[in-house]
């Protein structure tokens, strides 16, 4: 490996981390403003124009807060836990392609708009996402606090349960894209987004990601009325800020993954192909399209938080194991069947995937509705 490649890697890594950190800061503002609009309030608008400096004010406040460590806590793991939560959230973005490539002026050097395009990119995502559980579990345990412990337990059980459905949704995208490399998956969506071929898969993916990042309505680990603040009850100052940061960074990265796997990634809308707005014509449109898709998906997450109450914990586990897992298994089967038929008898058969999956999704919804309906006692 030559030196220039190392320098390129380091610069790209720094830019990516900087982008995710800035995104985190402004996502907090975005969420507070959007929530305020939904609840007919105004939200933070005092620091700077339209509250634009609010994230900086928050950061300064958190840095100067006193840091407390409980006397009976496990000191090493107590410090290690926030780090173990934040690092996976940051390095997840490494395999996500932000665009195609461009040639650096003067140096005549092609620069690709992704840090690494490895042939097992999707597997990398699942591996790193599964490591992220440790930080939360250890934070709960090392605090030596019953509430924190219960919060950590709940979150690990929840994340493991929903990881299965999430992995199956990855499998659907791998099947449709015929590759584990995220760049290949994006290129395969040049014509039709996977969200159109497999709409139910995209929906299941969005639901499981909400559970994976512990967002409402699945924010059991931090249910205030039951568990104080959950796994980070004992954390204060910058250590608390790291947990906060990890949660919002994960939201951003998981929206990027959703956009990449199901909504065409950095590619333009399919009807803009071969026009001025195509990524093939102007490389710098790639990151802009991805950013637009991420902002829309993030709004979806905020919207869900503003509208839905928390699900009871036993129902949350039942939903993951008894509803989402069978449904996503059926979706994988339908997708594989559709691809096989399309290969054998012609490309038209690919459209049996959306039809059959929507039928499967509606059938599941019907079953859930029937089992949840209150039994009326007949007199």
């Amino acid at each position, binding site marked *: 490996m030559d030196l220039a490649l190392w320098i390129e890697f380091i610069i790209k890594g720094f830019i990516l981390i900087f982008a995710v950190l800035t995104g985190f800061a402004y996502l907090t503002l975005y969420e507070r403003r959007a929530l305020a609009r939904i609840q007919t309030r105004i939200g933070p608008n005092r620091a700077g124009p339209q509250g634009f400096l609010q994230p900086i004010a928050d950061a300064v406040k958190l840095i100067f807060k006193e840091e407390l460590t409980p006397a009976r806590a*496990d000191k090493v*793991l107590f410090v290690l836990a926030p780090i173990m939560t934040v690092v996976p959230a940051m390095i997840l973005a490494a395999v996500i392609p932000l665009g195609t490539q461009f040639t650096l002026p003067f140096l005549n050097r092609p620069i690709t708009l992704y840090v690494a395009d490895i042939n097992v990119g999707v597997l990398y995502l699942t*591996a790193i*996402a599964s490591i992220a*559980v*440790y930080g939360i*579990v*250890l934070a709960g345990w090392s605090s030596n606090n019953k509430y924190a412990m219960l919060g950590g*337990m709940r979150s*690990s059980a929840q994340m493991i349960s929903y990881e299965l459905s999430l992995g199956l949704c990855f499998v659907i995208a791998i099947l449709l894209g015929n590759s584990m490399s995220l760049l290949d998956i994006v290129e395969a969506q040049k014509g039709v987004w996977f969200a159109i071929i497999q709409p139910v898969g995209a929906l299941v993916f969005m639901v499981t990601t909400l559970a994976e990042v512990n967002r409402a309505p699945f924010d059991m680990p931090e249910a205030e009325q039951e568990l104080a603040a959950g796994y980070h009850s004992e954390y204060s100052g910058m250590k608390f800020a790291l947990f906060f940061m990890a949660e919002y960074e994960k939201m951003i990265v998981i929206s990027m993954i959703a956009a990449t796997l199901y909504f065409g990634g950095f590619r333009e809308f399919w009807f803009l192909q071969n026009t001025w707005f195509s990524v093939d014509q102007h490389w710098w449109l790639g990151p802009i399209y991805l950013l637009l898709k991420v902002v829309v998906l993030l709004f979806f997450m905020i919207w869900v938080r503003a509208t839905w109450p928390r699900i009871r914990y036993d129902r949350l586990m039942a939903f993951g194991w008894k509803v989402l897992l069978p449904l996503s298994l059926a979706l994988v089967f339908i997708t594989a069947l559709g691809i096989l038929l399309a290969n054998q008898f012609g490309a038209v058969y690919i459209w049996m995937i959306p039809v059959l999956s929507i039928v499967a999704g509606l059938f599941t919804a019907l079953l859930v509705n029937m089992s949840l309906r209150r039994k009326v006692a007949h007199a």
Partner: protein
Amino acid sequence: MTPDLIAFFVLALIAIAAALGMLLSRNAVYSALFLVLNFGTVAVFYILLDAPFIALTQVSVYAGAIMVLFLFVIMLLGTETLPASKALPWQRPLAFILALILAGEAGYLLFFRNVTSGTIPQPVQTFGGPQALGQALFNQYLLPFEITSVLLLVAMVGAVVLTIKKKGEQ
């Protein structure tokens, strides 16, 4: 020394230290974490051997799923710290005998049997890639693969059956 060799020795040192830490730690949570570190270094070994698929499967299955469940059980049962050593009486002598046999075998292989190190043919670049692995698993080794999955399914059904209470039993 090539960079690969330096990386190998550093990783080997970490792996052995983590394994020792796992054995010697009196706190079960630390033991579990040392084991995770060990799995992580093994995964990097796989990457050095040009097998990224196996490396990432190692991380997501062992470190990401199985060890989280271990940690879960340790914390839930509240058995973090072990009591002072109360080993079974026959355990220590047996361990000594077995260790002696192992050392003898290793010594025999090292000094008495003349192992000539021929050059192993370099595998092709895509050897450990997902495509090659999938081809091998679903064509050549289909039967073992299916048997393994049936075994896992049986174990899973067994676990579910064990948790079901009989009617009338509280």
